[in-house]
């Protein structure tokens, strides 16, 4: 090993994690964390020191996106290219980072080796689109123009981060109020972390005794950061889009400062604030919203919280609070009262179907594993939510970790498993952190471990972080990944229920499925079955994003119509453009056009419309979205995420993408649409696993409903003005010669001509859309 590399680190890692072949993924993750990449000499050393073979370590380290084989810059900039980000200009942002950091074509790191730019399938912060993650900080609503500011902010933040101080917890006695702030990833990205600090500062300064409590995702991601003050009378006040500087004013509005001295000093500084702000706390009223306000009422009104019960109320990792709100009652009932048959029967009566996408009846899966004759069985929670445009499972894991653990424990009890795994994608660090914390607390309190709740039931739990491969959401690939292999799906049958982890019967369900279980056991299957549609019972959590006024996380009864979701809950498109379609189900789903807005959101109706329920991403599209581009976008995603095993998916999706790229580049020819459709049908019919079988859906559904757009592209026109090769930017007569566009153009395609009409050099123009966004007169035309 060369001198720069610490030769003992690998050995220590092996000692800590073990040397058996199935440890390879964990060892690689530790190596990558330590060095920022996987130095080859370290990998070779691992092969010598363990039972891991060179073939295995090479195969695995090149399969997962998380692993790098060459050194990276000091900080990684992960540009989210998820669906919501894509439709809001992620590619322009990605290009802008490259330009701004002067990264050579083909390279990913700037010449100073400070930043490495990576694309990431989806950060699950769809309401912040377009979003990037730099280091561990998430930034939202980027534009091509703002990348410089964001990088500066990040570097500034790095310098101040160490100066953070800790706050002493407030005394419980004489508490004046509870102040709740959302601390889901989205809220944090929108500044709720800073708000948290500011609130604590304000309380300390004013001497007010109030508990600042973090709560999980409130779902109203369009309003984040949200702050709610709950007085002892249970009267509550909700504030939206609160900035750290507003913290003090809000606190003072409802609560009285502590001692006399603090009251006087507070009075003085408040006066000063008033003078500066020019009025009686005007900055605050702007943010105040009320649950009775129509938009909020609409957003919340049609919702039914089961998986997200106590949404915005409960502290995600406060075990006592969970217990005080009926937590682990269902598990207790299952351990002490109900036998496996009775529980399965309850689940059967509830009509619960798998929330991961395919909608397989949960009770059948449970019964199959229960009936499998084996001494060793496993339960697995699929938290590898990879669909771009979906963030339900992330939010559930961040906000309700105990509920998921309880659901999984019930399942383990039913099937007779004593070991459970949570497979959580690496892009969700907060979810991993909260689940880890929650498992630890459960273990300490006897909710997991030996003889749970005094019964004869024992269960151990382990978290396996994914390593960046969408295909691992497919159950057989996920199991391969847990066993430390390349995440390659295999032919079913045998199903995991018969042959899963290490050949043993394995129950695998999605996060949301488990999250629904405690409520069903507590309230009864029939109660659950009263909600929802004919064959799709209960509620479904959706991530609503894209071109919608109120994006966020919603839980609604199945059977609600698409139009209700978009227009009533989501508040419609907003602006002048019209609602065009909803992309449902991510890369495996399809686009349901506005004219089918009346259809019911349930498994069968969505499948019939050419989409699928999928994991529940709803990305709303308007007239400015090009459906061919959307199809190309999804296919590019699945093609990139194909494991490469079967011919149809590995080569077939690439050939479909070739045709789509040609069409989007204005090189489409007659017959391409039909060729594309035929190939799509073959891939759907003959691919080995769900990824390949559903990858053509976005293409097939857009051809079905928006064939005219495809035809326009063949005629070298992009009606929505999205496909770069088919559009040009020009300056119209409304130009007032303000020079803003010229100042902001990143490639000097516009010459600065004060008070004259400007012109865009089409040769130089990179179609980053900055000029159109900066123009105060809407003078930039895109055709």
């Amino acid at each position, binding site marked *: 090993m060369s001198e720069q590399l610490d030769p003992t680190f690998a050995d220590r890692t092996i000692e800590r994690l073990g040397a058996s072949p199935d440890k390879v993924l964990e060892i690689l993750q530790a190596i990558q964390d330590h060095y920022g990449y996987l130095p080859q000499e370290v990998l070779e050393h691992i092969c010598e020191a363990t039972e891991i073979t060179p*073939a295995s*370590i090479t195969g695995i380290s090149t399969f997962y996106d998380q692993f790098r084989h060459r050194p990276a810059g000091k900080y990684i900039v992960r540009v989210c290219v998820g669906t919501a980000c894509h439709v809001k200009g992620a590619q322009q942002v990605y290009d802008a980072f490259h330009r701004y950091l002067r990264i050579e074509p083909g390279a990913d790191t700037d010449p100073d080796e400070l930043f490495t730019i990576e694309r990431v399938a989806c950060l699950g912060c769809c309401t912040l689109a377009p979003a990037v993650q730099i280091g561990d900080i998430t930034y939202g609503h980027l534009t091509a123009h703002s990348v410089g500011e964001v990088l500066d902010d990040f570097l500034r933040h790095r310098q101040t981060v160490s100066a953070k101080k800790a706050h002493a917890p407030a005394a419980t006695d004489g508490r004046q109020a509870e102040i709740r702030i959302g601390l889901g990833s989205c809220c944090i990205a929108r500044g709720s972390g800073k708000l948290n600090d500011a609130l604590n500062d304000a309380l300390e300064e004013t001497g007010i005794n109030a508990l600042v409590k973090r709560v999980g995702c409130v779902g109203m991601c369009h309003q984040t950061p949200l702050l709610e003050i709950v007085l002892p009378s249970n009267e509550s006040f909700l504030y939206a889009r609160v900035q750290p500087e507003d913290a003090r004013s809000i606190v003072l509005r409802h609560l009285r400062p502590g001692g006399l001295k603090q009251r006087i000093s507070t009075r003085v500084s408040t006066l000063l604030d008033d003078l500066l702000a020019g009025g009686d706390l005007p900055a605050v009223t702007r943010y105040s919203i009320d649950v009775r306000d129509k938009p909020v009422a609409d957003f919340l009104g049609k919702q039914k919280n089961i998986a997200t019960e106590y949404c915005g109320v409960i502290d995600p990792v406060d075990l006592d609070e969970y217990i005080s709100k009926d937590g682990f009652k269902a598990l207790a009932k299952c351990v002490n009262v109900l036998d496996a048959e009775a529980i399965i029967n309850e689940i059967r009566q509830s009509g619960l179907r798998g929330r991961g996408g395919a909608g397989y009846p949960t009770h059948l899966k449970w019964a199959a594993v229960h009936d499998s004759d084996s001494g060793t069985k496993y339960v697995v929670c699929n938290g590898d939510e990879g669909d771009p445009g979906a963030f339900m499972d992330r939010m559930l894991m961040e906000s309700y970790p105990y509920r998921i653990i309880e659901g999984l424990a019930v399942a383990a009890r039913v099937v007779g498993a004593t070991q459970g795994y949570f497979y959580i994608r690496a892009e969700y660090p907060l979810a991993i952190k909260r689940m880890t914390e929650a498992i630890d607390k459960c273990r300490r309190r006897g909710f997991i471990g030996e003889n749970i709740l005094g019964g004869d039931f024992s269960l151990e739990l382990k978290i396996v972080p994914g390593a960046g491969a969408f295909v691992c959401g497919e159950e057989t690939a996920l199991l391969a990944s847990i066993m430390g292999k390349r995440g390659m799906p295999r032919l079913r049958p045998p199903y995991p229920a018969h042959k899963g982890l290490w050949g043993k019967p394995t129950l695998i369900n999605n996060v949301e499925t488990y999250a629904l279980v405690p409520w069903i056991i507590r309230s009864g299957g029939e109660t659950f079955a009263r909600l929802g549609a004919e064959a799709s019972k209960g509620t479904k959590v959706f991530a609503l994003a894209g071109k919608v006024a109120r994006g966020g996380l919603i839980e609604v009864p199945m059977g609600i119509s698409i139009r209700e979701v978009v227009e009533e809950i989501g508040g419609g498109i907003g602006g002048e453009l019209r609602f065009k379609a909803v992309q449902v189900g991510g890369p495996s789903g399809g686009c349901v056009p506005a004219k089918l807005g009346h259809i019911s959101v349930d498994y069968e109706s969505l499948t019939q419309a050419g989409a699928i329920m999928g994991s529940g991403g709803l990305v709303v599209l308007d007239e400015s979205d090009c459906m061919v581009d959307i199809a190309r976008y999804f296919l590019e995603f699945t093609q990139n995420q194909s*494991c490469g095993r079967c011919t*149809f998916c590995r*080569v*077939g999706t690439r050939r479909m*993408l070739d045709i789509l790229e040609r069409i989007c580049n204005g090189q489409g020819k007659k017959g391409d649409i039909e060729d594309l459709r035929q190939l799509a049908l*073959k891939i759907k019919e003959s691919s080995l696993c769900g990824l390949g079988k559903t990858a053509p859906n976005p293409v097939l559904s857009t051809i079905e409903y928006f064939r005219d757009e495809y035809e326009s592209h063949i005629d070298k026109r992009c009606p929505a003005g999205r496909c770069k090769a088919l559009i040009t930017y020009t300056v119209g007569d409304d130009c007032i010669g303000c020079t803003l566009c010229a100042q902001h153009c990143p490639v000097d395609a516009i010459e600065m001509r004060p008070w004259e009409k400007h012109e865009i050099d089409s040769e130089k123009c990179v179609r980053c859309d900055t000029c159109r966004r900066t123009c105060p007169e809407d003078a930039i035309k895109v055709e």
Partner: protein
Amino acid sequence: MVRLTIDNQSVEVDDGATILDAAAKLGIEIPTMCFLNGCTPSTSCMVCMVRLADSDEMTPACGTIAQEGMTVVNDCDQVRQARITALELLLSDHAGDCMGPCQIGCAAKMNIPLMIRQIAAGDLDRAIATIKEDIAMPAVLGRICPAPCEKVCRRNQLDEALSICLLKRFAADADLSSPNPYKPKCAPANGKRVAIAGAGPAGLSAAYYLARKGYACIIFDERQEPGGALRYEIGRDQLPGDVLDSEIAQIIRLGVKFQHNTRIGKDKSLDKLCKSFDAVFLAVGKIAAEEIEQLGLKAAAKGIAVDSNTYQTNRGNVFAGGDAVRDGRRAVRSVADGKEAAIAIDQYLSSKNPTGPERPFNTRIGRLEEDEVERFKACAGDAARQTPADSEAGFSAAQAAAESSRCLHCDCRKPDACKLRKYSHDYRVRPGRYKGPRRLFEQQTQHSEVIYESGKCIDCGLCIQITAQEGEKLGLTFVGRGFNVRVAVPFDRTIADALKHTAKKCARACPTGALALRQEVCD
């Protein structure tokens, strides 16, 4: 035991047996590429797709466990189409030529790369046998052929084409000057007689190949001596008379007879020939439309109208080729016509429907990227293109050796064993059906027994399984994911490091030409 049906035939197999096993028991052949007994089915190539009638699902037969009461459909259009698409997709990402571009460019489709390797190995006896499979008069053509094969030689992209024509002449001259020139084994006389009109390159060639198949041939020619245009139109300086004579002598050695001074249609009627012979081949050279009609034949724009595959005219047992059916005046084309017509006549007289020569399946890389050409050089010599001492002389033995070592071996090392080629041929697939970016031609030549060309790999992973099973220390692995997945050696080592004791086993298991035994000696 479970009972199932495949194409309506019932069969009983052990529990755990696959559909493929069940089909084998019934004697139903299901194509497979990525499957090998002793390895876990990887269900990767997907050419073994069958349909399950009850669920109307497609599934790979190799990995699907037979279930009681299963109804499997193997013979139907949907299955056929799925297999075709799988093959066409694999071919769209295949950096390999089944046959060298030279062989494709050669009108006579001679296996030029094989001939070159035989010359390089100094095995001239086998070289001339290879040549004479397709070219009856190589010494003649070695002097007058415009060598379209050299124009398409991949070595052009590097420096200069192989001097193929002179190599062929070298082998042919050596044969003619040997005490016992090559004489192919002829089938025993089958009692059938074929009349050939015209003793030019097409007629002579047809006679040669018909004689090899056991037909009695008489060549009628209006001139005094045989050779047609070769003797009467080409200058002696270009084609010395003794070369022509001795090459024709090799044809006569097979029992071919001549009748000179006889022009069909004038000295002897076609009707009469048709009656006294089982078949007639017209290779009379350029012929006017009126004359064609007088013979009772249909005329086309450029001569006698024939079926382009079988050379058959509108008169069932009359065939025609050479300049009588086309413009061009290329001897190699006429020689090819003679050979192909001989095949069609043989098919006709064996009471089969004449279909013409079998066209072997071929896929081709197309234009090479710059660095791809460089990679081709790995197995080839560095010498510059050789030129003979003077324009009339051929190569010396040393020159022939140097020249033949320059061959890039573009043709596949497994032209017959490659399953991708076999099924592509059987299922009549279109190699250019899907276009787009493809894997690049690459070659690892460090191993003494095998050569690895990842451009031809279909990612079945059999070699990976074998190296793991057999305990290779380094072995092979998949690198990357999706469309970019490749079988490679861990840690960027060479194939020689990877395959210490499993090279031959892996090469035999490889369903394509990706891993192939070296052919340093002879094929």
